[in-house]
Protein backbone atom coordinates (compact mmCIF):
# COMPACT_ATOMS: atom_id res chain seq x y z
CA UNK A 1 0.00 0.00 0.00
CA UNK A 2 1.44 3.35 -0.96
CA UNK A 3 1.34 6.00 1.68
CA UNK A 4 2.52 8.75 -0.62
CA UNK A 5 -0.16 11.35 -1.04
CA UNK A 6 -0.03 14.15 -3.54
CA UNK A 7 1.09 17.23 -1.70
CA UNK A 8 -1.05 20.23 -2.64
CA UNK A 9 0.55 23.65 -2.96
CA UNK A 10 0.83 25.50 0.35
CA UNK A 11 -1.57 28.23 -0.77
CA UNK A 12 -4.09 25.62 -1.70
CA UNK A 13 -3.65 24.02 1.68
CA UNK A 14 -4.43 27.25 3.44
CA UNK A 15 -7.58 27.69 1.39
CA UNK A 16 -8.81 24.18 1.89
CA UNK A 17 -8.62 24.31 5.61
CA UNK A 18 -11.85 22.40 5.77
CA UNK A 19 -10.42 19.60 3.69
CA UNK A 20 -7.46 19.41 6.01
CA UNK A 21 -9.63 18.00 8.74
CA UNK A 22 -9.90 14.79 6.75
CA UNK A 23 -6.17 14.24 6.90
CA UNK A 24 -4.67 11.72 9.27
CA UNK A 25 -2.64 13.38 11.96
CA UNK A 26 -1.76 10.23 13.87
CA UNK A 27 -1.71 6.69 12.60
CA UNK A 28 -0.43 3.61 14.33
CA UNK A 29 -0.03 0.33 12.53
CA UNK A 30 0.06 -3.00 14.35
CA UNK A 31 1.78 -1.53 17.37
CA UNK A 32 3.39 -4.11 19.60
CA UNK A 33 5.20 -3.43 22.83
CA UNK A 34 6.84 -5.97 25.08
CA UNK A 35 8.29 -5.23 28.47
CA UNK A 36 10.74 -7.64 29.96
CA UNK A 37 10.13 -8.04 33.66
CA UNK A 38 12.71 -10.36 35.10
CA UNK A 39 12.05 -13.77 33.58
CA UNK A 40 8.78 -13.13 31.86
CA UNK A 41 7.79 -10.88 28.99
CA UNK A 42 4.73 -8.72 29.41
CA UNK A 43 2.83 -7.88 26.26
CA UNK A 44 1.55 -4.37 26.87
CA UNK A 45 0.33 -3.86 23.32
CA UNK A 46 -0.58 -6.72 21.04
CA UNK A 47 -1.11 -5.02 17.68
CA UNK A 48 -2.96 -1.73 17.89
CA UNK A 49 -3.93 0.21 14.78
CA UNK A 50 -5.48 3.61 15.33
CA UNK A 51 -6.21 6.41 12.86
CA UNK A 52 -6.80 9.90 14.15
CA UNK A 53 -7.99 12.69 11.88
CA UNK A 54 -6.77 16.25 12.14
CA UNK A 55 -8.93 18.27 14.51
CA UNK A 56 -10.44 15.32 16.33
CA UNK A 57 -10.90 15.07 20.07
CA UNK A 58 -10.00 11.51 21.05
CA UNK A 59 -10.17 9.86 24.42
CA UNK A 60 -8.18 6.74 25.12
CA UNK A 61 -10.03 4.90 27.81
CA UNK A 62 -9.32 1.73 29.69
CA UNK A 63 -8.49 0.37 33.08
CA UNK A 64 -4.99 0.63 34.56
CA UNK A 65 -2.69 -1.92 33.00
CA UNK A 66 -4.72 -2.05 29.80
CA UNK A 67 -1.88 -0.65 27.72
CA UNK A 68 -3.47 2.76 27.43
CA UNK A 69 -0.48 4.62 28.81
CA UNK A 70 1.89 2.55 26.70
CA UNK A 71 -0.04 3.50 23.57
CA UNK A 72 -0.05 7.12 24.69
CA UNK A 73 3.73 7.06 25.14
CA UNK A 74 4.23 5.61 21.67
CA UNK A 75 2.08 8.27 20.05
CA UNK A 76 4.00 10.97 21.89
CA UNK A 77 7.35 9.55 20.84
CA UNK A 78 8.22 8.95 24.48
CA UNK A 79 8.84 5.27 24.01
CA UNK A 80 9.84 3.04 21.11
CA UNK A 81 7.57 0.21 20.01
CA UNK A 82 8.78 -3.39 19.82
CA UNK A 83 6.96 -3.77 16.54
CA UNK A 84 4.74 -1.76 14.23
CA UNK A 85 4.93 1.91 13.29
CA UNK A 86 3.66 5.27 14.45
CA UNK A 87 3.06 8.03 11.92
CA UNK A 88 2.68 11.63 13.05
CA UNK A 89 1.59 13.81 10.17
CA UNK A 90 2.69 11.05 7.77
CA UNK A 91 6.17 10.89 9.32
CA UNK A 92 7.38 7.54 10.61
CA UNK A 93 8.63 8.25 14.11
CA UNK A 94 11.10 5.37 14.05
CA UNK A 95 13.04 7.10 11.25
CA UNK A 96 13.72 10.29 13.16
CA UNK A 97 17.03 11.19 14.74
CA UNK A 98 17.33 12.92 18.13
CA UNK A 99 17.18 16.41 16.63
CA UNK A 100 14.12 15.64 14.57
CA UNK A 101 12.38 14.05 17.50
CA UNK A 102 13.09 17.12 19.62
CA UNK A 103 11.84 19.31 16.79
CA UNK A 104 8.65 17.28 16.61
CA UNK A 105 8.08 17.46 20.35
CA UNK A 106 8.84 21.15 20.41
CA UNK A 107 6.64 22.28 17.55
CA UNK A 108 4.13 19.64 16.64
CA UNK A 109 3.12 18.07 19.94
CA UNK A 110 1.95 19.76 23.12
CA UNK A 111 2.05 17.64 26.27
CA UNK A 112 -0.21 17.96 29.27
CA UNK A 113 0.46 15.81 32.34
CA UNK A 114 -1.53 14.53 35.23
CA UNK A 115 0.95 16.09 37.64
CA UNK A 116 1.03 19.40 35.69
CA UNK A 117 4.85 19.27 35.53
CA UNK A 118 5.52 22.98 35.58
CA UNK A 119 9.16 23.83 36.26
CA UNK A 120 8.95 24.86 39.93
CA UNK A 121 11.66 27.51 39.83
CA UNK A 122 10.15 29.41 36.91
CA UNK A 123 7.20 31.79 36.90
CA UNK A 124 4.02 30.88 35.06
CA UNK A 125 5.00 33.08 32.12
CA UNK A 126 8.51 31.61 31.97
CA UNK A 127 7.03 28.14 31.95
CA UNK A 128 4.78 29.05 29.04
CA UNK A 129 7.61 30.61 27.07
CA UNK A 130 10.12 27.80 27.62
CA UNK A 131 9.15 25.86 24.48
CA UNK A 132 9.41 29.13 22.55
CA UNK A 133 12.98 29.53 23.82
CA UNK A 134 13.81 26.13 22.39
CA UNK A 135 12.08 27.05 19.13
CA UNK A 136 14.27 30.17 18.85
CA UNK A 137 11.63 32.89 19.15
CA UNK A 138 12.87 36.36 20.08
CA UNK A 139 12.34 37.70 23.58
CA UNK A 140 9.61 40.06 22.38
CA UNK A 141 7.77 37.35 20.50
CA UNK A 142 7.97 35.11 23.54
CA UNK A 143 6.54 37.74 25.86
CA UNK A 144 3.77 38.75 23.52
CA UNK A 145 2.68 35.23 22.76
CA UNK A 146 3.15 34.07 26.33
CA UNK A 147 0.88 36.82 27.61
CA UNK A 148 -1.70 36.05 24.96
CA UNK A 149 -1.71 32.37 25.88
CA UNK A 150 -2.00 33.17 29.58
CA UNK A 151 -4.95 35.44 28.74
CA UNK A 152 -6.50 32.62 26.74
CA UNK A 153 -6.49 30.30 29.71
CA UNK A 154 -7.80 33.10 31.92
CA UNK A 155 -4.61 33.66 33.91
CA UNK A 156 -3.46 36.96 32.47
CA UNK A 157 -3.24 38.30 36.01
CA UNK A 158 -0.98 35.53 37.38
CA UNK A 159 1.94 35.86 34.98
CA UNK A 160 4.65 36.19 37.60
CA UNK A 161 3.46 33.64 40.10
CA UNK A 162 5.49 30.51 40.72
CA UNK A 163 3.66 27.21 40.27
CA UNK A 164 3.70 26.73 44.05
CA UNK A 165 1.58 29.85 44.40
CA UNK A 166 -1.12 28.57 42.07
CA UNK A 167 -3.95 26.14 42.67
CA UNK A 168 -4.04 22.78 40.90
CA UNK A 169 -6.54 23.98 38.35
CA UNK A 170 -4.51 27.10 37.67
CA UNK A 171 -1.32 25.08 37.30
CA UNK A 172 -3.02 22.83 34.78
CA UNK A 173 -4.21 25.88 32.86
CA UNK A 174 -0.64 27.18 32.74
CA UNK A 175 0.39 23.74 31.49
CA UNK A 176 -2.26 23.97 28.77
CA UNK A 177 -0.99 27.40 27.78
CA UNK A 178 2.53 25.94 27.65
CA UNK A 179 1.39 23.04 25.50
CA UNK A 180 0.10 25.57 22.96
CA UNK A 181 3.32 27.58 22.95
CA UNK A 182 4.48 26.68 19.46
CA UNK A 183 1.06 26.14 17.88
CA UNK A 184 1.22 22.35 17.86
CA UNK A 185 -0.92 20.12 15.68
CA UNK A 186 -1.57 17.68 18.48
CA UNK A 187 -2.12 18.02 22.18
CA UNK A 188 -1.41 14.87 24.16
CA UNK A 189 -2.99 14.92 27.56
CA UNK A 190 -2.22 12.19 30.07
CA UNK A 191 -4.99 12.07 32.67
CA UNK A 192 -5.26 15.87 32.64
CA UNK A 193 -8.01 15.84 35.26
CA UNK A 194 -6.55 13.05 37.39
CA UNK A 195 -5.25 15.31 40.14
CA UNK A 196 -8.13 17.79 40.11
CA UNK A 197 -11.48 17.98 41.85
CA UNK A 198 -14.70 17.49 39.92
CA UNK A 199 -15.45 21.12 39.19
CA UNK A 200 -11.90 22.08 38.23
CA UNK A 201 -11.63 18.95 36.13
CA UNK A 202 -14.73 20.00 34.24
CA UNK A 203 -13.27 23.44 33.60
CA UNK A 204 -10.10 21.92 32.22
CA UNK A 205 -12.07 19.61 29.95
CA UNK A 206 -14.13 22.54 28.70
CA UNK A 207 -11.00 24.56 28.05
CA UNK A 208 -9.47 21.70 26.07
CA UNK A 209 -12.66 21.29 24.07
CA UNK A 210 -12.83 25.00 23.35
CA UNK A 211 -9.24 25.02 22.14
CA UNK A 212 -9.96 21.98 20.01
CA UNK A 213 -13.01 23.56 18.39
CA UNK A 214 -11.71 27.07 17.95
CA UNK A 215 -8.14 26.42 16.92
CA UNK A 216 -8.54 23.04 15.30
CA UNK A 217 -5.80 21.40 17.34
CA UNK A 218 -6.14 17.64 17.65
CA UNK A 219 -6.56 16.49 21.24
CA UNK A 220 -5.66 12.97 22.32
CA UNK A 221 -6.27 12.29 25.94
CA UNK A 222 -5.57 9.18 27.97
CA UNK A 223 -8.09 9.16 30.75
CA UNK A 224 -10.50 7.25 32.83
CA UNK A 225 -12.52 10.32 33.61
CA UNK A 226 -16.00 9.73 32.23
CA UNK A 227 -16.59 13.48 32.00
CA UNK A 228 -14.33 13.33 28.97
CA UNK A 229 -16.85 11.18 27.15
CA UNK A 230 -19.22 14.09 26.62
CA UNK A 231 -16.73 16.17 24.71
CA UNK A 232 -14.86 13.50 22.75
CA UNK A 233 -15.46 12.93 19.07
CA UNK A 234 -14.41 9.33 19.45
CA UNK A 235 -13.57 7.14 22.37
CA UNK A 236 -11.06 4.36 21.92
CA UNK A 237 -11.45 1.68 24.55
CA UNK A 238 -8.29 -0.29 25.24
CA UNK A 239 -8.39 -3.64 26.94
CA UNK A 240 -5.58 -6.15 27.44
CA UNK A 241 -3.33 -4.48 24.90
CA UNK A 242 -5.92 -4.45 22.16
CA UNK A 243 -8.58 -2.07 20.95
CA UNK A 244 -11.78 -3.23 22.57
CA UNK A 245 -14.08 -0.90 20.64
CA UNK A 246 -14.19 2.55 19.11
CA UNK A 247 -17.24 4.64 19.69
CA UNK A 248 -18.20 7.89 18.04
CA UNK A 249 -20.04 10.51 19.98
CA UNK A 250 -23.34 9.87 18.17
CA UNK A 251 -23.17 6.18 19.08
CA UNK A 252 -22.42 7.14 22.62
CA UNK A 253 -25.23 9.66 22.65
CA UNK A 254 -27.68 6.88 21.75
CA UNK A 255 -26.24 4.70 24.42
CA UNK A 256 -26.46 7.43 27.00
CA UNK A 257 -30.10 8.17 26.18
CA UNK A 258 -30.85 4.47 26.38
CA UNK A 259 -29.28 4.44 29.78
CA UNK A 260 -31.47 7.34 30.79
CA UNK A 261 -34.65 5.39 29.97
Amino acid at each position, binding site marked *: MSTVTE*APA*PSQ*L*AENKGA*LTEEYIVRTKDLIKHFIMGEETVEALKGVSVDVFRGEYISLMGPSGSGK*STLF*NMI*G*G*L*DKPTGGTVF*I*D*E*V*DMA*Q*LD*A*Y*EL*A*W*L*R*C*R*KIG*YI*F*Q*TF*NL*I*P*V*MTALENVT*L*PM*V*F*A*GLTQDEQMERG*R*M*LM*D*TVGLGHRLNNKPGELSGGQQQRVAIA*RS*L*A*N*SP*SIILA*DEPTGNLDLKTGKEIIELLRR*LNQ*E*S*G*VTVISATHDLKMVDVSDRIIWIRDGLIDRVQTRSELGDQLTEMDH
Partner: protein
Amino acid sequence: MADDTNTTGHDPVDEVDASAAPIDAAALAETEAKHELLEGLTEKERRALLAGDRVEALSEDEIRSRLVASDSGDTLGHEDLVQGMERELSAQTQVIDLLSDQREPEGLNIAKVLDSSVIDLSMLMARQVHDKTADIIGPKASAERREHVKDEISLPNAKAIEMSVKSVRQRLGRVAITGSSIFLGIAFFASVRTTALCLQAAGEAGDSGEAARLTWLIIMALLVSVVGICNSMLMAVTERFREIGTMKCLGALDQFIVKLFLIESGVLGLLAGVFGSILGIAMMYLVNTMRYTFSFADVVGGFGGILIQGILLGSILSVLAAILPARQAARMPAAAALRSTV
Protein backbone atom coordinates in the same frame (compact mmCIF):
# COMPACT_ATOMS: atom_id res chain seq x y z
CA MET B 1 -30.50 51.15 12.87
CA ALA B 2 -27.01 52.32 12.26
CA ASP B 3 -27.66 52.23 8.53
CA ASP B 4 -30.56 54.64 8.88
CA THR B 5 -28.64 57.32 10.63
CA ASN B 6 -25.50 56.91 8.63
CA THR B 7 -26.93 57.22 5.14
CA THR B 8 -24.50 59.97 4.19
CA GLY B 9 -21.73 57.44 4.24
CA HIS B 10 -19.60 59.65 6.46
CA ASP B 11 -18.48 59.06 9.95
CA PRO B 12 -19.38 61.96 12.18
CA VAL B 13 -15.71 62.17 12.97
CA ASP B 14 -14.84 62.49 9.32
CA GLU B 15 -17.25 65.36 8.94
CA VAL B 16 -15.65 67.23 11.76
CA ASP B 17 -12.32 66.76 10.07
CA ALA B 18 -13.61 68.00 6.77
CA SER B 19 -15.03 71.13 8.29
CA ALA B 20 -11.80 71.90 10.08
CA ALA B 21 -9.44 74.65 9.02
CA PRO B 22 -8.60 74.77 5.35
CA ILE B 23 -5.51 72.87 4.37
CA ASP B 24 -2.41 74.94 4.46
CA ALA B 25 1.14 73.94 3.77
CA ALA B 26 2.33 74.40 7.35
CA ALA B 27 -0.34 72.09 8.81
CA LEU B 28 0.40 69.54 6.16
CA ALA B 29 4.09 69.61 6.95
CA GLU B 30 3.36 69.20 10.62
CA THR B 31 1.11 66.21 10.02
CA GLU B 32 3.82 64.69 7.91
CA ALA B 33 6.37 65.28 10.63
CA LYS B 34 4.09 63.63 13.17
CA HIS B 35 3.58 60.59 11.04
CA GLU B 36 7.29 60.39 10.47
CA LEU B 37 7.79 60.25 14.21
CA LEU B 38 5.51 57.27 14.46
CA GLU B 39 7.15 55.48 11.59
CA GLY B 40 8.84 52.25 12.43
CA LEU B 41 6.53 51.53 15.33
CA THR B 42 4.39 48.45 15.20
CA GLU B 43 0.64 48.93 15.14
CA LYS B 44 0.51 47.84 18.76
CA GLU B 45 3.17 50.26 19.93
CA ARG B 46 1.48 53.02 17.99
CA ARG B 47 -1.82 52.28 19.66
CA ALA B 48 -0.26 52.18 23.08
CA LEU B 49 1.60 55.39 22.44
CA LEU B 50 -1.45 57.22 21.24
CA ALA B 51 -3.50 55.70 24.03
CA GLY B 52 -6.69 56.23 22.10
CA ASP B 53 -5.94 59.75 20.91
CA ARG B 54 -5.88 60.55 17.23
CA VAL B 55 -2.57 61.58 15.74
CA GLU B 56 -4.18 64.78 14.49
CA ALA B 57 -5.34 65.70 17.96
CA LEU B 58 -1.82 65.63 19.36
CA SER B 59 0.86 68.21 18.87
CA GLU B 60 4.23 67.25 17.50
CA ASP B 61 5.86 67.94 20.87
CA GLU B 62 3.37 65.77 22.66
CA ILE B 63 4.14 62.81 20.43
CA ARG B 64 7.83 63.45 20.84
CA SER B 65 7.55 63.51 24.62
CA ARG B 66 5.52 60.30 24.65
CA LEU B 67 8.09 58.66 22.46
CA VAL B 68 10.85 59.73 24.81
CA ALA B 69 8.85 58.46 27.75
CA SER B 70 8.33 55.13 26.06
CA ASP B 71 12.02 54.84 25.31
CA SER B 72 13.15 55.61 28.82
CA GLY B 73 10.78 53.29 30.58
CA ASP B 74 8.77 50.25 29.83
CA THR B 75 5.73 52.33 29.06
CA LEU B 76 4.81 50.42 25.96
CA GLY B 77 3.99 47.49 28.11
CA HIS B 78 0.90 45.45 28.46
CA GLU B 79 -0.81 47.91 30.79
CA ASP B 80 -0.47 50.78 28.35
CA LEU B 81 -1.74 48.62 25.60
CA VAL B 82 -4.81 47.71 27.58
CA GLN B 83 -5.25 51.31 28.62
CA GLY B 84 -4.90 52.49 25.06
CA MET B 85 -7.39 49.95 23.87
CA GLU B 86 -9.73 50.86 26.67
CA ARG B 87 -9.69 54.47 25.60
CA GLU B 88 -9.97 53.57 21.98
CA LEU B 89 -12.88 51.38 22.86
CA SER B 90 -14.66 54.03 24.87
CA ALA B 91 -14.22 56.41 21.94
CA GLN B 92 -15.74 53.79 19.68
CA THR B 93 -18.54 53.21 22.13
CA GLN B 94 -19.31 56.89 22.04
CA VAL B 95 -19.53 56.81 18.29
CA ILE B 96 -21.80 53.80 18.45
CA ASP B 97 -23.89 55.55 21.05
CA LEU B 98 -24.17 58.58 18.85
CA LEU B 99 -25.24 56.48 15.93
CA SER B 100 -27.65 54.24 17.70
CA ASP B 101 -28.69 56.78 20.31
CA GLN B 102 -28.87 53.95 22.77
CA ARG B 103 -26.56 54.43 25.66
CA GLU B 104 -25.41 51.42 27.58
CA PRO B 105 -25.95 52.18 31.24
CA GLU B 106 -22.69 50.56 32.34
CA GLY B 107 -20.51 51.03 29.31
CA LEU B 108 -18.53 48.05 28.09
CA ASN B 109 -16.66 45.81 30.41
CA ILE B 110 -13.08 45.88 29.22
CA ALA B 111 -12.34 42.44 30.56
CA LYS B 112 -15.16 40.95 28.59
CA VAL B 113 -14.20 42.76 25.44
CA LEU B 114 -10.62 41.64 25.80
CA ASP B 115 -11.84 38.14 26.30
CA SER B 116 -13.69 38.11 23.04
CA SER B 117 -11.49 40.28 20.84
CA VAL B 118 -7.83 40.00 21.72
CA ILE B 119 -8.08 36.36 22.54
CA ASP B 120 -9.00 35.31 19.09
CA LEU B 121 -8.01 31.70 18.93
CA SER B 122 -7.68 31.60 15.20
CA MET B 123 -5.13 34.36 15.59
CA LEU B 124 -3.47 32.36 18.30
CA MET B 125 -2.84 29.53 15.95
CA ALA B 126 -2.01 31.80 13.04
CA ARG B 127 1.64 30.89 13.35
CA GLN B 128 0.79 27.33 12.55
CA VAL B 129 2.59 26.83 9.33
CA HIS B 130 0.87 24.52 6.94
CA ASP B 131 4.10 23.06 5.72
CA LYS B 132 3.74 19.36 5.82
CA THR B 133 5.76 17.88 8.64
CA ALA B 134 6.93 15.18 6.26
CA ASP B 135 8.63 17.86 4.15
CA ILE B 136 10.71 19.00 7.12
CA ILE B 137 11.67 15.89 9.03
CA GLY B 138 11.81 12.20 8.34
CA PRO B 139 13.06 10.24 5.36
CA LYS B 140 10.82 12.01 2.83
CA ALA B 141 12.28 15.43 3.60
CA SER B 142 15.30 16.65 1.68
CA ALA B 143 18.70 16.17 3.28
CA GLU B 144 19.24 19.93 3.42
CA ARG B 145 15.96 20.53 5.19
CA ARG B 146 16.69 17.77 7.67
CA GLU B 147 20.08 19.31 8.34
CA HIS B 148 18.43 22.67 8.95
CA VAL B 149 16.26 21.19 11.70
CA LYS B 150 19.33 21.17 13.93
CA ASP B 151 19.40 24.97 13.88
CA GLU B 152 15.73 25.23 14.71
CA ILE B 153 16.13 23.80 18.19
CA SER B 154 18.33 25.88 20.41
CA LEU B 155 19.06 27.01 23.92
CA PRO B 156 21.08 30.24 23.77
CA ASN B 157 23.88 30.39 26.34
CA ALA B 158 22.57 33.61 27.86
CA LYS B 159 19.22 31.97 28.46
CA ALA B 160 20.84 28.83 29.86
CA ILE B 161 22.85 30.91 32.33
CA GLU B 162 19.74 32.85 33.30
CA MET B 163 17.84 29.61 33.90
CA SER B 164 20.69 28.06 35.90
CA VAL B 165 21.20 31.12 38.09
CA LYS B 166 17.45 31.20 38.78
CA SER B 167 17.51 27.55 39.65
CA VAL B 168 20.40 28.05 42.08
CA ARG B 169 18.67 31.05 43.65
CA GLN B 170 15.42 29.17 44.10
CA ARG B 171 16.97 26.07 45.60
CA LEU B 172 19.36 27.96 47.82
CA GLY B 173 18.95 25.68 50.82
CA ARG B 174 19.64 22.60 48.79
CA VAL B 175 22.44 24.26 46.90
CA ALA B 176 24.08 25.35 50.15
CA ILE B 177 24.28 21.73 51.25
CA THR B 178 25.56 20.52 47.88
CA GLY B 179 28.05 23.36 47.76
CA SER B 180 29.26 23.04 51.33
CA SER B 181 31.80 20.35 50.49
CA ILE B 182 33.47 22.43 47.80
CA PHE B 183 33.10 25.51 50.01
CA LEU B 184 34.99 23.83 52.82
CA GLY B 185 37.58 22.43 50.44
CA ILE B 186 38.28 25.87 49.03
CA ALA B 187 38.33 27.38 52.52
CA PHE B 188 40.99 24.84 53.47
CA PHE B 189 42.99 25.60 50.36
CA ALA B 190 42.80 29.34 51.02
CA SER B 191 43.73 28.96 54.69
CA VAL B 192 46.84 26.91 53.91
CA ARG B 193 47.92 29.40 51.27
CA THR B 194 47.26 32.33 53.57
CA THR B 195 49.23 30.77 56.40
CA ALA B 196 52.17 30.25 54.07
CA LEU B 197 51.90 33.85 52.98
CA CYS B 198 51.82 35.11 56.57
CA LEU B 199 54.78 32.95 57.62
CA GLN B 200 56.79 34.26 54.73
CA ALA B 201 55.94 37.84 55.69
CA ALA B 202 56.99 37.12 59.28
CA GLY B 203 60.24 35.61 58.07
CA GLU B 204 59.38 32.16 59.47
CA ALA B 205 59.72 30.06 56.36
CA GLY B 206 58.66 26.45 56.91
CA ASP B 207 60.71 23.51 55.70
CA SER B 208 60.05 22.06 52.28
CA GLY B 209 58.80 18.74 53.68
CA GLU B 210 56.04 20.58 55.48
CA ALA B 211 55.03 22.37 52.27
CA ALA B 212 54.83 19.07 50.35
CA ARG B 213 52.67 17.49 53.05
CA LEU B 214 50.32 20.47 52.93
CA THR B 215 50.05 20.27 49.17
CA TRP B 216 49.07 16.65 49.53
CA LEU B 217 46.46 17.56 52.08
CA ILE B 218 45.00 20.22 49.82
CA ILE B 219 44.77 17.82 46.91
CA MET B 220 43.08 15.21 49.05
CA ALA B 221 40.64 17.74 50.51
CA LEU B 222 39.68 18.99 47.09
CA LEU B 223 39.24 15.44 45.79
CA VAL B 224 36.90 14.67 48.66
CA SER B 225 35.00 17.85 47.82
CA VAL B 226 34.62 16.80 44.20
CA VAL B 227 33.34 13.38 45.17
CA GLY B 228 30.94 14.99 47.65
CA ILE B 229 29.53 17.41 45.12
CA CYS B 230 29.25 14.67 42.52
CA ASN B 231 27.28 12.54 44.93
CA SER B 232 24.91 15.36 45.90
CA MET B 233 24.31 16.22 42.28
CA LEU B 234 23.56 12.62 41.37
CA MET B 235 20.89 12.70 44.06
CA ALA B 236 19.55 15.98 42.71
CA VAL B 237 19.29 14.46 39.24
CA THR B 238 17.17 11.56 40.43
CA GLU B 239 14.99 13.98 42.35
CA ARG B 240 14.46 16.18 39.34
CA PHE B 241 13.44 13.37 36.99
CA ARG B 242 10.11 14.94 36.22
CA GLU B 243 11.55 18.34 35.47
CA ILE B 244 14.12 16.85 33.12
CA GLY B 245 11.56 14.63 31.39
CA THR B 246 9.25 17.59 30.95
CA MET B 247 11.98 19.69 29.40
CA LYS B 248 12.60 16.92 26.92
CA CYS B 249 8.91 16.74 26.12
CA LEU B 250 9.03 20.46 25.41
CA GLY B 251 11.79 19.90 22.89
CA ALA B 252 15.03 20.04 24.88
CA LEU B 253 17.95 18.11 23.43
CA ASP B 254 20.24 16.04 25.66
CA GLN B 255 22.91 18.66 25.31
CA PHE B 256 20.60 21.35 26.74
CA ILE B 257 20.19 19.32 29.89
CA VAL B 258 23.94 18.79 30.14
CA LYS B 259 24.49 22.50 29.59
CA LEU B 260 22.00 23.49 32.27
CA PHE B 261 23.46 21.14 34.87
CA LEU B 262 27.06 22.13 34.13
CA ILE B 263 26.30 25.83 34.33
CA GLU B 264 24.34 25.33 37.49
CA SER B 265 27.26 23.51 39.03
CA GLY B 266 29.64 26.17 37.77
CA VAL B 267 27.60 28.90 39.43
CA LEU B 268 27.57 26.86 42.60
CA GLY B 269 31.35 26.40 42.46
CA LEU B 270 31.85 30.09 41.81
CA LEU B 271 29.84 31.02 44.89
CA ALA B 272 31.57 28.37 46.99
CA GLY B 273 34.94 29.59 45.67
CA VAL B 274 34.26 33.22 46.55
CA PHE B 275 32.95 32.57 50.04
CA GLY B 276 35.32 29.70 50.79
CA SER B 277 38.37 31.78 49.86
CA ILE B 278 37.20 34.76 51.86
CA LEU B 279 36.57 32.60 54.90
CA GLY B 280 39.94 30.84 54.63
CA ILE B 281 41.90 34.04 54.09
CA ALA B 282 40.15 35.98 56.85
CA MET B 283 40.44 33.23 59.43
CA MET B 284 44.08 32.42 58.83
CA TYR B 285 45.04 36.05 58.69
CA LEU B 286 43.49 36.61 62.11
CA VAL B 287 45.03 33.48 63.61
CA ASN B 288 48.48 34.30 62.30
CA THR B 289 48.44 37.94 63.40
CA MET B 290 48.06 36.62 66.92
CA ARG B 291 51.05 34.31 66.61
CA TYR B 292 53.50 36.24 64.50
CA THR B 293 54.36 39.81 63.88
CA PHE B 294 53.97 41.12 60.33
CA SER B 295 52.20 44.04 58.76
CA PHE B 296 48.92 43.76 56.84
CA ALA B 297 50.46 45.63 53.92
CA ASP B 298 52.98 42.82 53.42
CA VAL B 299 50.38 40.13 52.92
CA VAL B 300 47.36 41.91 51.39
CA GLY B 301 48.96 41.82 47.95
CA GLY B 302 48.87 38.02 48.00
CA PHE B 303 45.23 37.77 49.05
CA GLY B 304 43.99 38.72 45.58
CA GLY B 305 45.91 35.86 44.05
CA ILE B 306 44.57 33.36 46.57
CA LEU B 307 41.04 34.62 46.01
CA ILE B 308 41.32 34.25 42.24
CA GLN B 309 42.89 30.79 42.56
CA GLY B 310 40.14 29.76 44.98
CA ILE B 311 37.37 30.96 42.68
CA LEU B 312 38.90 29.29 39.64
CA LEU B 313 39.52 26.04 41.49
CA GLY B 314 36.01 26.08 42.94
CA SER B 315 34.25 26.63 39.63
CA ILE B 316 36.42 24.26 37.61
CA LEU B 317 36.27 21.41 40.13
CA SER B 318 32.54 21.93 40.53
CA VAL B 319 31.95 21.73 36.78
CA LEU B 320 34.15 18.62 36.57
CA ALA B 321 32.20 17.02 39.39
CA ALA B 322 28.95 17.69 37.52
CA ILE B 323 29.96 15.94 34.29
CA LEU B 324 28.80 12.54 35.42
CA PRO B 325 25.51 13.72 36.98
CA ALA B 326 24.77 15.92 33.97
CA ARG B 327 25.22 12.99 31.61
CA GLN B 328 23.02 10.91 33.84
CA ALA B 329 20.39 13.65 33.66
CA ALA B 330 20.61 13.85 29.90
CA ARG B 331 20.00 10.12 29.66
CA MET B 332 16.72 10.51 31.54
CA PRO B 333 13.97 9.51 29.10
CA ALA B 334 11.29 12.03 28.19
CA ALA B 335 8.76 9.51 29.43
CA ALA B 336 10.03 10.18 32.96
CA ALA B 337 7.77 13.22 32.85
CA LEU B 338 4.78 10.93 33.14
CA ARG B 339 6.04 8.92 36.08
CA SER B 340 4.19 9.74 39.23
CA THR B 341 6.72 8.35 41.72
CA VAL B 342 10.49 8.16 41.92
